[in-house]
């Protein structure tokens, strides 16, 4: 999954409701809406390694890497009541 950093925790919560709490998310700094193609290209190149990790790493390894991150992002206390606890 690709998201800007501002919204990556939303992205993980959405993924968790679909059964994928440990999806690898490639982040880039927010905002991007104003960027021209030449400015977007280096952003994409900076994320490509993470994208390849997400496509090639074994699920066990991904879960190991993301377990603590996912728990913190998906259901921070007092903020989100509707996502799936991890």
């Amino acid at each position, binding site marked *: 999954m690709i998201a800007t950093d501002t919204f990556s925790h939303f992205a993980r919560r959405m993924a968790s409701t679909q059964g994928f709490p440990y999806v690898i998310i490639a982040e880039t700094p927010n905002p991007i809406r104003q960027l021209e193609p030449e400015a977007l290209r280096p952003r994409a190149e900076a994320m490509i390694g993470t994208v390849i990790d997400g496509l090639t790493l074994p699920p066990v390894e991904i879960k190991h890497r993301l377990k603590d991150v996912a728990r913190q992002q998906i259901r921070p206390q007092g903020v989100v009541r*509707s996502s799936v606890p991890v």
Partner: protein
Amino acid sequence: MTQAQMQLEAGSVAQLLTRAYEHAYEAGWTDGLPIIPATPDAVQQFIAASGCPADKLVGILPSRKGRATVEVIAVNAIMAGCRPEYMPVLIAAVEGLSDPTYPLELMQVTTNPMTPFLLVNGPVRNKLEINYGTGCLGPGWRANATIGRAIRLILINVGGALPGVYSKVAFGSPLRYSYICGENEEENPWTPFHVDRGFRREDSTVTVFKASNFCNISGGEGVGPDEILRQIATNMPPMYGGGDGALLLLGVNHAHSLYEAGLTKRDVQQRLWELARLPADHFAETFATTERAVGRGDAKTVWRAHSPDEIYVAVAGGPGPQNVYIGAGMPQTRVIRTV
């Protein structure tokens, strides 16, 4: 039943209601307020009142692509506190929200607190006691409060507008609890809103708007039509994210004053379109540039609406020098098929 069922036990009715509320809240099914448990018997009663089969698909709602069947709508209506006879209104509203041209997916996920606003026309208003007069935007009327609430619960539970999950709304809005009223056709000196949109006066309809705000406009008492419209227009500034149109709920006093001065509804739309403009240098340059690019401005001014057609006028509320302006557009009107 195609939906999952669960059982709760308690020592008293009061405990059961509290446990049902706590369970629904923890599961993320509510807007935060208490709910009525949707028992199988109640669901069947609501389905029967709809006149439709339980599994009839009314719409597929983004962003989770949830299936809004009659049965699912019934469950949410019960939780919201609706009466069974409100079901046809909800079904018609969901039909409107599901129209491919209605921007529901954007509304469900954006950081902007935009929300549907429902305008009800026709005989159904009196039949269901949907308030269109004094205090029509609430609180205090069950039909208004619970139909609007049911729509929000449907958007959460079917569409997936879970706050903090799919919905990224930065602040949210009190308008997201319930945002609905009837048109005061009885005090409207012109044709009702749904008739302007091609329906018969005796039809009952619900129109869903993409709405962004609420602004009560006070003033303009004992003055002529130009002063009334100027007072309204100066409270309708161009706004970011509100470019799809403006809905004016014209108060009954001003509606009669304008009518008696010889203005048609089209005259009101035209004049407001001309008056609701501000100097371009009043705005951030990027906003002014964007508005100009989409046809809502010229070299010197930025306009509230692209054309008079995008200024929607309905009459509502009770007596008093008050009007309501809602940044609202992209209306979808559907006939309410009462049983």
